[in-house]
C-alpha cells in the first residue's frame, strides 16, 4: 500500500464499550442501552406480527385463552387464602414454599435448555427476513417461557400455596408480590442459564460436555437423595428470602419487604442483561448438532419388504433424525422417572406418569404430525399409496415412540418403587397403552383439523404457535391425568379390573382414530393439510 493510500484510509475508531457515556454535566444513553430499548420495541412489533397471523378459530380463541390464563391466576391468588385451615396447617405449607419456589427455576431451565435457548417469538425461517437482534430474541424467549403447561401449573401451584399459607388478610396482594416477582426473576435466571448451556453445547464437543454436566447434576441429586441430605440442602435454598419477603408483606414489615423486593428486582435486571449478552454470544456460534444432523449420512438399507415398512421407515427417520425431537424424547423419558425416583413414588402413584410422558411426547411433533414431511409432503402425497396406509404408518410410529418413552420412564421410576403387585402391574400396563392411544388419537385429529407450516429442524421450533400449544397441552393434561387417576384407583382392585376399564377407553380412541383416518382419506381435506404443511 502506498503512503498516499495510507493517508486517505481512515483509521478505525476504537472506543471502550461502556454502558453510559458520561459527558460534562450530562449523561447520554449509550448505544447498548439504546439497543436494549429498541429490542424491547421490536418484541412488541414481532408480537403484533404473530397475533396478526392468527386466523379463524385461533384468532377467536386467543383473547379467550389469555383471559382464562389471567382469570385462573387471579383465582389461585385469592381462593386458597379463603379456604379454612383444616387438615393442613398454614405454617406447614409455608415451610414447603422455598422448595416449591425452586421448582419454577428447575422447570424453566430444563424447558429452555432442552429447546436450545427457549421458544422463538418468530420462527427462525420467518425471522431471517427481519433484523431481529439476539437481545430481541432473548426478550421474546422470556415472554414465551410462561406459555408452557409445566411452567403455568408450577406457577399457579406456588401462588396458590403462598395464598393459602398467608391466609385471608387485606395484605394478601402485597404478600404475593414477591412471588410474582420471583416468577419473573426465576424465569429470567433460567433463561440466562439456558443460553449458557446452549453456548457450551455449540462449542467443540459441546454436546458431550452438556450431557456429562447433566449426568453430574443428576448423580449429585441421586447421592443427596440416597444419603437423605436433600431436605437439608433445600432448607438452605436462596429462595428462603422470597418466603421472608412474603411473610414481611403479610405482617406489614415494610422495610424488610421493600429491601427483598429490590433484591429480587435487581437480580432479575442483571439476569435479563446477562441473558441478552449470552444470547449474543450464542448467536455467533453455529448450532453444531443441528448442522451435524443436516449433513449426516446414513448407509443404504435393504429395500423395504412392504409398502407399510417403506412408509414406516420414512416416518421414523423424520423423528429420530430431528434434534428437537430426539432431545425432547430423552428429557421426557428420563426426567419424570427421576422425579418419581427422588420422590419415592409407589406403583399406585405411578399410574399418572404414562399420561405425563405421552402428552409431552406428542406435544413435540404429534399435534401437527404431517409437518414431519415438511415440503416433501407434496411429493409424498403424489406417490401411489393408499392414504389410509400412510395414516396407519403415522399412528404406528407415534405409538411406538410414546410406548418406548413411557416404558423407560417406568423402568427408572420403578427402581425405587419395589416390585409391583399383579394388580399394580396390570393397572400401569393398561394405563400406558390407553393413554398412548388416547393422545395419538387426539393429536392426529388435531393434525388433520389444524395443520401448521413448521420447520422442525430448529431445536427451538414448536409444532404449533405457542398459545395453541398451551391449549393443546392443557387439554391433553386434563384427559390423561383423569385416565391415570382412574387406573391408579384400579390398581387397588383385582387385576382384571384394569383390563375391563381399558376396553371403553381403547374403543373410544379407536373410533376417534377411525373417524380421523376417514377425514384424512378425503382428497379435499388431505390437500388442505398437505398444502399447509408444505407451504
Amino acid at each position: 500500500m502506498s503512503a498516499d493510500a495510507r493517508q486517505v484510509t481512515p483509521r478505525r475508531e476504537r472506543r471502550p464499550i461502556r454502558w453510559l457515556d458520561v459527558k460534562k454535566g450530562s449523561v447520554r444513553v449509550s448505544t447498548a442501552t439504546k439497543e436494549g430499548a429498541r429490542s424491547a420495541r421490536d418484541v412488541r412489533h414481532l408480537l403484533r406480527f404473530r397475533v396478526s397471523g392468527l386466523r379463524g378459530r385461533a384468532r377467536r380463541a386467543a383473547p379467550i385463552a389469555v383471559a382464562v390464563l389471567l382469570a385462573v391466576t387471579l383465582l389461585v391468588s385469592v381462593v386458597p387464602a379463603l379456604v379454612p385451615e383444616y387438615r393442613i396447617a398454614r405454617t406447614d405449607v409455608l415451610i414447603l414454599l422455598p422448595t416449591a419456589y425452586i421448582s419454577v427455576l428447575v422447570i424453566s431451565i430444563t424447558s429452555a435448555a432442552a429447546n436450545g435457548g427457549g421458544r422463538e417469538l418468530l420462527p427462525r425461517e420467518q425471522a431471517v427476513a427481519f433484523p431481529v437482534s439476539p437481545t430481541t430474541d432473548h426478550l421474546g424467549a422470556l415472554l414465551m417461557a410462561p406459555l408452557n403447561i409445566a411452567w403455568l401449573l408450577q406457577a399457579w401451584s406456588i401462588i396458590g400455596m403462598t395464598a393459602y399459607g398467608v391466609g385471608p388478610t387485606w395484605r394478601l396482594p402485597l404478600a404475593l408480590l414477591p412471588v410474582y416477582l420471583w416468577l419473573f426473576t426465576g424465569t429470567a435466571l433460567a433463561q440466562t442459564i439456558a443460553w449458557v448451556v446452549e453456548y457450551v453445547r455449540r462449542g467443540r464437543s459441546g454436546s458431550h460436555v452438556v450431557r456429562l454436566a447433566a449426568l453430574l447434576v443428576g448423580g449429585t441429586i441421586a447421592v443427596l437423595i440416597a444419603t437423605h441430605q436433600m431436605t437439608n440442602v433445600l432448607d438452605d435454598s436462596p429462595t428462603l428470602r422470597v418466603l421472608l419477603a412474603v411473610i414481611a408483606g403479610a405482617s406489614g414489615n415494610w422495610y424488610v419487604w421493600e429491601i427483598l423486593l429490590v433484591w429480587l428486582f435487581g437480580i432479575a435486571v442483571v439476569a435479563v442483561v446477562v441473558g441478552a449478552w449470552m444470547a449474543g454470544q450464542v448467536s455467533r456460534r453455529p448450532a453444531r448438532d443441528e448442522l451435524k444432523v443436516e449433513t449426516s449420512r446414513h448407509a443404504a438399507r435393504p429395500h423395504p419388504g412392504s409398502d407399510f415398512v417403506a412408509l414406516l421407515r420414512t416416518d421414523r427417520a423424520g423423528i429420530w433424525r430431528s434434534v428437537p425431537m430426539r432431545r425432547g424424547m430423552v428429557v421426557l423419558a428420563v426426567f419424570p422417572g427421576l422425579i418419581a425416583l427422588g420422590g419415592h413414588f409407589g406403583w399406585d402413584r405411578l399410574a399418572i406418569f404414562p399420561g405425563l410422558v405421552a402428552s409431552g411426547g406428542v406435544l413435540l411433533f404429534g399435534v401437527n404430525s404431517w409437518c414431519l414431511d415438511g415440503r416433501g409432503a407434496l411429493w409424498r402425497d403424489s406417490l401411489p399409496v393408499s392414504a389410509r396406509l400412510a395414516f396407519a404408518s403415522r399412528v404406528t410410529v407415534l405409538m411406538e415412540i410414546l410406548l418406548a418413552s413411557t416404558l423407560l420412564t417406568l423402568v427408572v421410576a420403578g427402581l425405587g418403587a419395589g416390585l409391583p403387585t399383579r394388580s399394580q402391574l396390570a393397572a400401569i400396563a393398561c394405563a400406558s397403552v390407553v393413554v398412548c392411544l388416547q393422545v395419538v388419537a387426539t393429536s392426529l385429529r388435531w393434525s388433520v383439523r389444524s395443520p401448521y407450516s413448521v420447520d422442525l429442524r430448529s431445536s427451538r421450533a414448536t409444532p404449533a404457535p405457542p398459545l395453541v400449544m398451551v391449549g393443546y397441552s392443557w387439554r391433553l393434561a386434563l384427559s390423561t391425568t383423569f385416565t391415570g387417576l382412574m387406573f391408579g384407583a384400579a390398581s387397588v382392585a383385582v387385576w382384571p379390573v384394569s383390563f375391563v376399564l381399558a376396553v371403553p377407553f381403547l374403543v373410544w380412541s379407536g373410533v376417534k382414530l377411525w373417524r380421523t383416518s376417514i377425514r384424512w382419506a378425503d382428497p379435499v381435506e388431505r390437500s388442505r393439510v398437505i398444502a399447509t404443511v408444505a407451504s
Partner: protein
Amino acid sequence: MTAAPEPTTPAPVVDVQSLWVSFGSVDAVRGIDLQVAPGAATALLGRNGAGKSTTMRVLAGVIPPSQGRVHVAGRDIRREALAVKRVTGYCPDVGGLVPRATPWEHLQLAARLRRLPVGWEERARDLLERFDLGGVAHRVTGGFSHGMGRRMSVILAAFHQPRVVLLDEPFDGVDPLGVEATLDVIADARAHGSAVLVSTHLRELAVQACQHAIVLRGGSAVAELSAAEIGGEEGAGVYRALLD
C-alpha cells in the same frame, strides 16, 4: 385409386377440459383446457398466481379438481386418483423432499410404492450421477441447497419412466449443468413416449424443452403457441404482451 390413410393423431395422455380449482372464495384455476400427446412436451407459462402450480398439483393427484374433466392416461383423476399417481412423476414447485431422508431413501420409497422391477437401482444411480448427486446419495436432504433439492426432485419425477412427467419450476435456482441434465431428462422422457408438462417462468428454457406453450393469466389459458412463436426476441414481445 384409393385415398392414402390420414396420419392418426395419438390420443392425448393428459386431457383436461374446463378445469376449475377453487380454494374457498378464490378461484385459482378458471376453466383451463389442456391436452398433451405421448412424446410431446408442453410448457405452462405465466406470472405468479396464474394457476400453473395448481394445475400441476391437480394432475399429480395432490389437489382434487373443483370442476371439470381431468383424464390422465385415460383415467379420471377424480375417481381413480391412485391409478393416476401410478403413471405420473411429479416434481413439486416447493421443496419436494422429505427433509430427514436421504436421496437413496427417497428412491427406495418411490421404487417400492411404484412396484419397480429389480434393477431400478442402476438407472437411479445413473441419474444421480448425471445430476451430480452421486456423492450425496446417502446424506439427508435437509442440508441440501435449493438447486440440489430441485435436481433431486427432477430425478424423483422421472426415474421410474412414467407416462406423464410433471415438472413444476424444475430450473429454478439450478446451475447450468443441472439445467442441461434436466433438458436431457425431458428429451429422454419424450423419446420414451412420455407426455411432459413443464411449468416455468423461464421462457427461453421452456422453448428449448417443449414444442408447445400455454400461457396462463389469472387462472385461465390466454394463448396456446408453438415454441417457434414464443422463442427469440419476437417471441419475448409476444409473451410479454400476453402477461398484461
